[in-house]
């Protein structure tokens, strides 16, 4: 029994980082008021760029390439949404479609239709001392990204709620007009948050191809970007909340896979399909329950027009 829990914990820690970073990226962007449906696309280009870069540079540096790819896509979104006040959902969706087809095109052209060649995965670190402790030892043996994913949410949370920059970001996401009257430039705040969101989403994607797996697989991220959005909503647009929700969803997924192999009879009662649908259903329930008191940033999705005299 304990081994099963340990195994599930271990695989959760392997799968969760991608989701966690993507969710954090979504939170960052949306906290400043810009809807970010394009997380899926940013993860995809991030995963691809990292897997390709890892063929020529050390995997650690390749992760950086993934982050940059995500940021690049995000900068298009930022430019259209902020400078041209485009509909943010349309822009995000378009980027998803472009990323989907574009990466497939590049994959086909340069490598094989199913995926990139295998690369050296990120090195796994052993945390000394806990190897003998049951349960706790599941914490050892993961890549740097995993440990990062446990630390960054807290740092992000601190930054959002305890720094001046974080305060301004929150202000701009709620009531940009009020911020303007106090001399804060809304667009100068939104560009970095959207692009930063892309960096994080790219990191999430890179985690998929360099840590979880050892290559870019043709379907990546296979809907994970949308679960990240669900995690963001479920976690009420806070870094720690998104982290918790993402870990919860990843854990549920690991549980589902674990059950499939070790206790298939459970799946006869609760079919896999239900378990797969669960994160989305839960998010919907939370939204429906909250109603109009949802904690979404008040100016989310509304293009900001600077007052003209």
């Amino acid at each position: 029994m304990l081994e099963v829990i340990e195994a599930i914990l271990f695989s959760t820690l392997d799968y969760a980082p991608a989701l966690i970073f993507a969710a954090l990226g979504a939170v960052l962007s949306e906290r400043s008021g810009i809807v970010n449906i394009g997380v899926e696309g940013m993860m995809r280009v991030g995963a691809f760029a990292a897997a390709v870069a890892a063929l020529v540079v050390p995997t650690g540096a390749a992760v950086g390439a993934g982050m940059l790819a995500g940021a690049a896509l995000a900068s298009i979104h930022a430019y259209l949404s902020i400078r041209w006040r485009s509909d943010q959902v349309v822009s995000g969706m378009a980027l998803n479609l472009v990323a989907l087809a574009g990466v497939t095109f590049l994959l086909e052209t340069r490598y094989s239709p199913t995926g990139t060649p295998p690369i050296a995965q990120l090195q796994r670190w052993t945390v000394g001392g806990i190897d003998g402790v049951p349960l706790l030892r599941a914490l050892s043996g993961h890549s740097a990204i995993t440990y990062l994913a446990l630390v960054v949410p807290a740092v992000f949370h601190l930054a959002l709620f305890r720094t001046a920059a974080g305060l301004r970001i929150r202000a701009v996401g709620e009531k940009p007009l009020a911020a303007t009257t106090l001399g804060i430039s809304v667009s100068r705040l939104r560009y970095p948050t959207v692009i930063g969101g892309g960096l994080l989403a790219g990191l999430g994607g890179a985690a998929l191809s360099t840590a979880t797996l050892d290559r870019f697989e043709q379907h990546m991220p296979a809907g994970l970007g949308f679960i990240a959005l669900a995690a963001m909503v479920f976690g009420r647009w806070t870094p720690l909340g998104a982290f918790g929700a993402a870990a919860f969803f990843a854990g549920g997924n690991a549980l589902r896979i674990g059950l499939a192999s070790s206790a298939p009879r459970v799946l006869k009662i609760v079919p896999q399909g239900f378990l797969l649908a669960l994160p989305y259903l839960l998010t919907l329930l939370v939204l429906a329950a909250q109603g109009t008191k949802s904690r979404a940033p008040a100016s989310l999705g509304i293009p900001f027009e600077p007052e003209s005299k």
Partner: protein
Amino acid sequence: MGMFPSLFRAALPSLLSIVLALLVCFIAIAVSRSDLSIAANAYLQMLWGGLGDVPSFLGSGNWSLLTRAWGESAAKAALLTFTGLAVSVAFCVGLFNIGAQGQMTVGAIVAAVIGAKVALPAGLHPAVAIAGAAGAGALYALLPAVLKVRRGVHEVISTIMLNWVAVSLVENWLVVGPLRATASGDLSRSGTDEILPTAELPRLLGSLSRLNAGFPLAVLSAVGVWFWLNRTSNGFEARAVGLGMEAARTAGIDVRARVYQTMAFAGALAGIAGAVWVLGTEYKFPATLGAPYGFDGIAISLIGQNHPLGVGAAAIFFGVLRAGGTRMQLLGVHKSFPELIQGLALLFVAGRLIWDSVLRRSAKRAVPMAEVPRA
């Protein structure tokens, strides 16, 4: 309708976006192969694949060289029309229907079940299956509508969630569980049971191609949506709600009723897309829906400026491109290449205001564009 010049000017951003997307992708192939002729060839193959192998036809007189392609193009165009309409109809009342994928999925499964398990005469069978699919899609679209009206839940998030719920429940439970095809002998088949022959949508050109009744149905639907929007009071009220909800309410229009009804209409259209897919080409619900037709519908709708005729035109254009995509593989270009063109076209359409300011420099007075309306 309006004068042609103003119609043309209204369509200009879309046309320019498509042209630009075609250009960018052309350059992409040329650069990745370091060979312009391959790019040109690829595009040509795409064209022949979609419209029919004209040179071979002219040489041999074999009609099937053309009709086969027409069938494929028409099949894809039909699906894109339905999902595109599903999105544009919802826009009429100011709602962004990202849920066409989920609505199509539920419609498809219902059609598959009615097609396989219910015995009906040949004329009635497809009609009932389609009606069932439409009803399922309508109900599935009412969910986000109710959540929006009564709980203020934004339809973008709720429809995205519901998409995945539908896909998970249908593809990962129903199709592999209770509705799984019964194995025959040693063969186990994926997907659901095959539909009965009486449920199949008739092929219009016999064995010459896969052109089925879905295409004329799609064309009729586009015309029907146009008619509803421009000729009926009901459509008029829906438009009013989308363009000016407060004024519509003050003037006495029942805003809630219009919102619910229109969303149900949108969902029904997406559901019919699912039915046409099952009854026209697949003859069962296969393991997975495969292509993201629902999301494509969003692109088609926006490229078509949310106008039923624009949607139809864009659907046919991209249907042709996508049917032709399979032939591009001969030149080593992935068959999903047309999706890249489509995605880029959507991206360029998204930068609509950029087009506006570019065009305004040349036009005396810009024709006002419809924005993505939001309730």
